[in-house]
């Protein structure tokens, strides 16, 4: 893989204006698929969530999922789009084994939603309007896994496996108009735009919106033109940029790469690009010309989708609070200062803090943990904070341990590292690493004996291998010691006494 020449971002900005465009695919979280009654579930055994329709068996016919249409209308409304009164599906014909019918059923010239916009708030509080060209419904393809090659791509693979569980999953593709005038804010805007779309679909409840699972996938178009020129340059389309940070990095990289190509007096090649998270670079995909011939024609097996004005208004009335309004409300509820709140939003942990508070933490504790500990760790690990896998319950537990004086703050951060390293729950780690306050075993053993004698049936259960029953004895000991004992140590001692290994 050749490393292509790039210009520094600053140099690129001195000479060129970037023009961006995004195609964001949102997987809807409907119970069933776009055109079949098979379950729409992520992560199951390959080729189990399929029926004859998904496999493109001879004789099958599609039926449009009404909930998917509702979700699409909701997305359209949230993006300030017009909703088509009547629109059709079309067939996009191409031979590829991830598409069981060898055509994808998609909307083509009649999208359900069109002509919208989204106001994007940048980190300094300025608002940038992104125009939405359209949002249309389509079905996802199956998932191909290329085996035996070094790159994981089809080239050089020995064979490929196909999983049709994803085939037919409802998608809404949101397409922007060309985004001009972002200048050096282009990478930041790119990230903020995708974050806003993700936030909207999550807020609507129409998608699980988990980028790491491909619920939200972004194709980023970038072109450059010299300052002062109106005509757009030739664009590249970087496919499947599937995290917010990656969107920012990919746009930045492509700007730098285009600038170098143009500076060398060469034309940019119109093509798709593959994003590589490890090197933060793109490589050439397949050439993409506007003449790709998919032989679109209206899907004859489906009747037009008719969205009566009454239905659209009914749906509009069910829309949840828009994210911007929600932010205002949350800031007030939590009592964060403007600066504190903006930091939270920019760090991308507002949802996580909300979940943590819902799990029982105070607003200041939640902010302390997410902003003070987790964001920094995510930065070091080079992932989005939400992707570290910290559960709200973990933070609540840690905070409680500190509050109860079982561990101190310093120990708590050590426990968090243990959790992130997959060593178990905070209690496990406190126990394993011996972080808890040292306790005198003598009085504890007495209390344990008393608790075991009080509940002989439970003791038998534990001896019989029901280790989880130990909680009842621990509870007894904790009660007897007025909560001053180290629960993990108590548990250890009980099991030791009963000759059971946990």
């Amino acid at each position, binding site marked *: 893989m050749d490393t292509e020449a790039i210009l520094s971002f600053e140099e690129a900005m001195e000479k060129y204006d970037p023009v961006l465009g995004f195609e964001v695919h949102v997987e809807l979280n409907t119970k069933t698929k776009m055109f079949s009654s098979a379950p729409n579930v992520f992560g199951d055994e390959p080729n189990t969530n399929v029926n*004859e329709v998904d496999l493109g068996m*001879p004789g099958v*016919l599609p039926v449009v999922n009404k909930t998917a249409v509702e979700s699409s209308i909701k997305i359209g409304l949230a993006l300030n789009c017009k909703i088509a009164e009547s629109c059709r599906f079309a*067939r996009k*014909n191409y031979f590829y084994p991830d598409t069981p019918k*060898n055509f994808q059923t998609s909307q083509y010239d009649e999208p359900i939603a069109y002509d919208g916009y989204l106001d994007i708030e940048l980190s300094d509080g300025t608002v940038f309007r992104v125009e939405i060209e359209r949002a249309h419904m389509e079905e996802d393809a199956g998932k191909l896994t290329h085996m035996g090659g070094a790159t994981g791509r089809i080239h050089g693979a020995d064979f490929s496996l196909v999983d049709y569980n994803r085939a037919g999953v409802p998608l809404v593709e949101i397409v922007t108009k060309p985004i001009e005038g972002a200048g050096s804010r282009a990478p930041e805007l790119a990230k903020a735009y995708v974050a806003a779309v993700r936030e909207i679909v999550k807020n609507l409840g129409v998608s699980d919106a988990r980028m790491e699972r491909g619920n939200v996938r972004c194709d980023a178009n970038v072109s450059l033109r010299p300052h002062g020129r109106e005509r757009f340059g030739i664009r590249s389309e970087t496919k499947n940029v599937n995290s917010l940070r990656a969107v920012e990095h990919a746009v930045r990289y492509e700007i730098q790469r285009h600038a170098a190509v143009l500076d060398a007096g060469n034309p940019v090649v119109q093509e798709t690009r593959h994003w590589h998270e490890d090197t933060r670079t793109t490589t050439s995909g397949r050439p993409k010309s506007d003449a790709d011939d998919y*032989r679109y024609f209206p899907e004859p*097996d489906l*009747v037009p989708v008719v969205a009566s004005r009454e239905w659209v208004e009914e749906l509009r009335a069910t829309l949840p609070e828009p994210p911007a309004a929600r932010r205002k409300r949350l800031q007030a509820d939590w009592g964060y200062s403007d600066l504190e709140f903006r930091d939270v939003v920019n760090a991308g942990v507002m949802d996580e803090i909300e979940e943590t508070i819902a799990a029982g933490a105070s607003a200041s504790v939640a902010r302390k943990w997410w902003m003070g500990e987790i964001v920094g760790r995510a930065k070091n690990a080079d992932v989005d904070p939400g992707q570290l896998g910290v559960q709200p319950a973990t933070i609540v537990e840690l905070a409680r341990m500190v509050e109860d004086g079982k561990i101190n703050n310093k120990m708590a951060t050590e426990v968090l590292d243990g959790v992130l390293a997959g060593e178990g729950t905070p209690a496990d780690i406190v126990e394993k690493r011996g972080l808890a306050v040292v306790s005198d075993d003598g009085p504890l053993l007495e209390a344990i004996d008393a608790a075991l004698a009080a509940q002989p049936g439970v003791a038998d259960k534990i001896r019989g291998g029901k280790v989880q029953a130990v909680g009842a004895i621990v509870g007894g000991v904790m009660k007897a010691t007025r909560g001053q004992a180290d629960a993990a140590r108590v548990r250890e001692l009980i099991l030791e006494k009963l000759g059971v290994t946990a």
Partner: protein
Amino acid sequence: MTDTKTLIRLSAARLAEKLAAGEVTSVEVTQAYLDRIAEVDGGERGVHAFLHVNAEEALAVAAEVDAIRAAGGAEAEALHVLAGVPIAVKDLIVTIGQPTTAGSKILEGWHSPYDATVVERLRAAKMPILGKTNLDEFAMGSSTEHSAFGPTRNPWDLDRIPGGSGGGSAAAVAAFEAPLALGTDTGGSIRQPGAVTGTVGVKPTYGSVSRYGAIAMASSLDQIGPVSRTVLDSALLHHVIGGHDSRDSTSLPDPLADLVAAAKTGNVEGMRIGIIKELHGEGYQAGVENRFNDSLEILKEAGAEIVEVSCPNFQYALGAYYLIMPSEASSNLAKFDGVRYGLRVLPEDGPMTIERVMGATRAAGFGDEVKRRIILGTYALSAGYYDAYYGSAQKVRTLVQRDFDAAFTVADVLISPTAPTTAFRLGEKLDDPLAMYLNDVATIPANLAGVPGLSLPGGLADEDGLPVGIQLLAPAREDARLYRVGAVLESLLEAKWGGPLLAQAPELAAAAGPVETLVGSQEAK
């Protein structure tokens, strides 16, 4: 006790009465048909209407019906009127437990994991399924000669074609191998075989019978319909298979008017019957024209008002059809690629890429006519040609619909010959696709407009003594009118002939060889 020779010649309605009265059992009826199939279908000079015979399951269903009848009570009362009456199914319609080939090598040996909606409804009515009938590959043809498993012969003359694509279903009914059959009609595949075999065939209103499980040729034109020996029998079968199906988005929500009652109306007085100026005369065989005129005369005598209508855009219908049909077919047939089911052919040499495996499979699996239509359709949908071909054809389609709309303001039912000629000889038009396509000139407008059409026997042509079909057409959802007019015309014609037209068909000699169930033999255990 009726002897089996008489039994197999009874209409389905009459069989149903005898079954209900306990004069005959379904096992006797089913066995009689299976024996008839064994007698005339196989061998060198056999009719070859069947690709698969489903004896075991058919007899089991028949025995079940007989047991229910014998036990009496509520369950016997609840039996469908056609319970125990056997039926044959065109091999384009998928069935659990039997192979489905679509007449193509590319699906040879494939067993569907699901039943078509119409098959579910046959099973619900407890009609024994005798087997799967031959057809032009993927229903593409007008002679059944394009079947990958050899042609079907016309029982009236074994050297002639039985029409197509549903030649197997029509020939099976004409040869008394089945009292009823299912067909599919995209451009005339039920009606034209009906015409040339002296049987009745109906293409229902588009959307009135579910297409779920009919292997698609052209989705906007395909429609499943009944094949029978009498108009009433088709009405009975249409009632079984029709009605809304949530698995077919193009399925009509509301039921049609009572078709069986319509077939029993018994008069056409005051009905306006419109002769379509463009669908007779030049290009139509003299004997066809004569029998067509006989029918007009009879309807007039029966009190109908005969009017003439003009449908000027019908002249473009054939051209539009041969753009829309292959366009949709090229996309519908893309799924046959060797990846998930059916034939898979590996390239003999060179790299084993997916494109090359798909290419080799499709090259080996599809016949010439299928390839011809895929190529035509791919071309018609290509960027730069779409507007000129597919787009223009859709405009013609709208004009054809308008012609029908106008014609139905002055006529309740339209009438024409079903096909321009009687059955031609096997091989006669095989190398001339355009001549073959012209067979469908009178049947195609109904598919383009989605209106229903019925073909019934109109007598024998003077010059060759072969059956002539009369086509009736009605506005969308007015299928009942076809059955009303068709049944009256049928009874008056039969009175004139002194019995059903099929009584005049030559006796078929017992076939010399075994029944060739090419596909069925694969699953022999």
